[in-house]
C-alpha cells in the first residue's frame, strides 16, 4: 500500500532542503518527544501501571473474570464477523467505484467516508432510529447482538474499500484480458488473478477495521443495551468498572485491548513494508 502511514520513513529524501526553521533540530526533537510523552505515553503508562497495581494475580483475575471474559469474547467475535462482512462488501464497493461507470459516482465515492466524518454517537442514534423499536420496517434489533454487528459494520465500512481502491486502479487489466482470451471464465479470472492482487489491500483494511471495531464505544452505547453477559462489549465493560470504582480491573482489561491493538498495528506496518519492497 503506497502512502500508508507505516511506510513514511522508508524513503526519506537526502538530507538537504530546509531543516526545522528557527529551532535547532535537537530542540525540535526534544519538543516532539515531550509532547508525545505528555499527551500519549504517560497516560498509557498510567493504565499499564494501574493494571498490575494489585499484582499479576489480580491482573489475571480481572481479565479472566466471568463478566470480563464474556465481554472480551463478544467483542472479538462480533469484530471478526464485522470484518468478514466488510471484507466482502468493501471489495464489491471498491470494484463498483473503480471499474463501473454510473452517474453520481463522485458523490457515492465521497459518501464512503461518511462513517469517518459522522460522530459515533450520531451513528448509533441514526441506526437506532431506523432499526430500533420505532423502525418503519418493523425490524427491531435494538439491544441485541445483531445491533452490535450492524453498528460496527457502519463504523468500519470505509477501511477495506479505501485500501482496495488504489490496488484496483493500479492493476494491469491486460492480465485479465489474456486470461479471458485463453478461455478462463469470469469466476476463474476473479479467483486466480483479481483476488490475489487485491489480497494485500483487503488484509490491511481488515486489520485496521478489526482494531477499530475492538475499541468502539460511542456508536454502541445507545443501540446495544449494554446488558452484561449478553450485549456488553469490552469498552462498555471498562466504563462500567470505572464507574463502580474498580479502576484496576478496568485497567487490566484495557491493557488486553491495548495489546491486541498494538499487535495489529505492528502487523499492518509489516504488511505495508512488505508491500513497499515488492
Amino acid at each position: 500500500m503506497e502512502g500508508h502511514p507505516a511506510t513514511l520513513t522508508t524513503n526519506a529524501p537526502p538530507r538537504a532542503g530546509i531543516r526545522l526553521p528557527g529551532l535547532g533540530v535537537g530542540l525540535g526533537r526534544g519538543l516532539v518527544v515531550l509532547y508525545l510523552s505528555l499527551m500519549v505515553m504517560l497516560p498509557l503508562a498510567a493504565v499499564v501501571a494501574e493494571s498490575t497495581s494489585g499484582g499479576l494475580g489480580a491482573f489475571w483475575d480481572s481479565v479472566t473474570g466471568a463478566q470480563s471474559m464474556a465481554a472480551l469474547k463478544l467483542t472479538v467475535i462480533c469484530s471478526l464477523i464485522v470484518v468478514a462482512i466488510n471484507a466482502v462488501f468493501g471489495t464489491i464497493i471498491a470494484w463498483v467505484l473503480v471499474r463501473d461507470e454510473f452517474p453520481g459516482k463522485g458523490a457515492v465515492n465521497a459518501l464512503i467516508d461518511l462513517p469517518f466524518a459522522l460522530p459515533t454517537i450520531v451513528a448509533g442514534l441514526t441506526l437506532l432510529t431506523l432499526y430500533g423499536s420505532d423502525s418503519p420496517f418493523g425490524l427491531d434489533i435494538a439491544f441485541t447482538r445483531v445491533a452490535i454487528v450492524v453498528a460496527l459494520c457502519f463504523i468500519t465500512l470505509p477501511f477495506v474499500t479505501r485500501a482496495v481502491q488504489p490496488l484496483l486502479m493500479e492493476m494491469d487489466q491486460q492480465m485479465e484480458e489474456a486470461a479471458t482470451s485463453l478461455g478462463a471464465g469470469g469466476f476463474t479470472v476473479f479467483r486466480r488473478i483479481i483476488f490475489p492482487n487485491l489480497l494485500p489491500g483487503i488484509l490491511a483494511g481488515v486489520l485496521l477495521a478489526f482494531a477499530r471495531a475492538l475499541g468502539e464505544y460511542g456508536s454502541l452505547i445507545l443501540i446495544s443495551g449494554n446488558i452484561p453477559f449478553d450485549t456488553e462489549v469490552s469498552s462498555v465493560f471498562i466504563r462500567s468498572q470505572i464507574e463502580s470504582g474498580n479502576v484496576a480491573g478496568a485497567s487490566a482489561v484495557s491493557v488486553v485491548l491495548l495489546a491486541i491493538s498494538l499487535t495489529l498495528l505492528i502487523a499492518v506496518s509489516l504488511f505495508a513494508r512488505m508491500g513497499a519492497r515488492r
Partner: protein
Amino acid sequence: MSTPTPAKWGLRTLAFGYLGLLLLAPVGMIFYKTFEHGLGPPIEAMTSPDALHAIWLTLLMVAVAVPLNTVFGVGCALLLVRHKWKGNAVLDGIINLPFAISPIVVGLSLFLLYGTDGWFGPTLSEWGIQVLFSTPGMILASVFVSLPFVVRETVPVLQEIGTEQEQAASTLGANAWQTFWRVTLPAIRWGVAYGVVLTTARVLGEFGAVTIVSGSISGETETLPLFVAKAFEQFNEEAAYAGAIVLALLALTTLLLMSVGGRKAKAQGGPIPITGDAAISTSTTKEGS
C-alpha cells in the same frame, strides 16, 4: 475487461443496497425525524441554554486542540521526513497509537493521571488546577484522539515535494524561516489543510474519551455529542435528534471539504490522502478508470 452485464448489475445492486441500508437510509431517517413537525422544535431544542453551552464548548475544544495538533503535526512531519534519526521509527509508531486505542481507554488513562488519586491530580489541585471533570481534561482527551491526522497527511506531501526549491531559496539567501513560510508551507498546504479537516471532524465528534474525563455535567462540561447522548437517555428525543442533526451537518461539511481537499492535494502531486481514522491514503479522487 468489461464485466458482463448481469454480473455488473449484480455487483451494483449489492454495493448500492449495502450503502443504502447501512448509511443513507439511517441518516435520511434522522433528518426526517428531526423535521417531522417543522423547523420550530429542533430550533427551540438547540437554543436552550444547555444546548448552546454544549455547542460553545464543542467549538472551544476544536479551537484549542486543532491548532495544537497542527503546529505539532507540521513540525513533527518536518523532523520525520527531513532529519534522519534512529528514533524516527519509534516516534512514528507512537504517533499511530491513538488510531488503535479505544477512546474509553484514552479516557481511563487521563482519569488515572489527573484524578483525585492520580499521578498528577493531587499536586495540580494543590495549585488550584482542576483537570478532570473540567475543560483542561476534555482538551487533553481531544488532543490525544486527534493527534495523528496532521502528521499523517503532511508526511507524504513533504516527501513528494522534495528539497530542490528549498535549496534554491536558501542559495538565493533566504533564511530557514523565510524558506519555510515562502516555499515549504505553500507547497504542503493542501496536505496540512486536509489533516486539519480530519482533526476537526474527530474533535467535534469525540465521545468515548470525553465522556470519561468530563463527568458530563449539563451546562458545564457537556459537549454536543454528550448532550445528544444524555438527551436521548432522558427521553428528550427532540433535543437528541436536533443535536444529532447539527453534528451530522458538520460531518457533511467535513465530507465535502475532505473530498475537495483530497482532490487539491492530488493536483499538487502528493499521494492522495482520502483518510479516516486509520489514515489509509488512497487515490480515490480519480474519476472513471
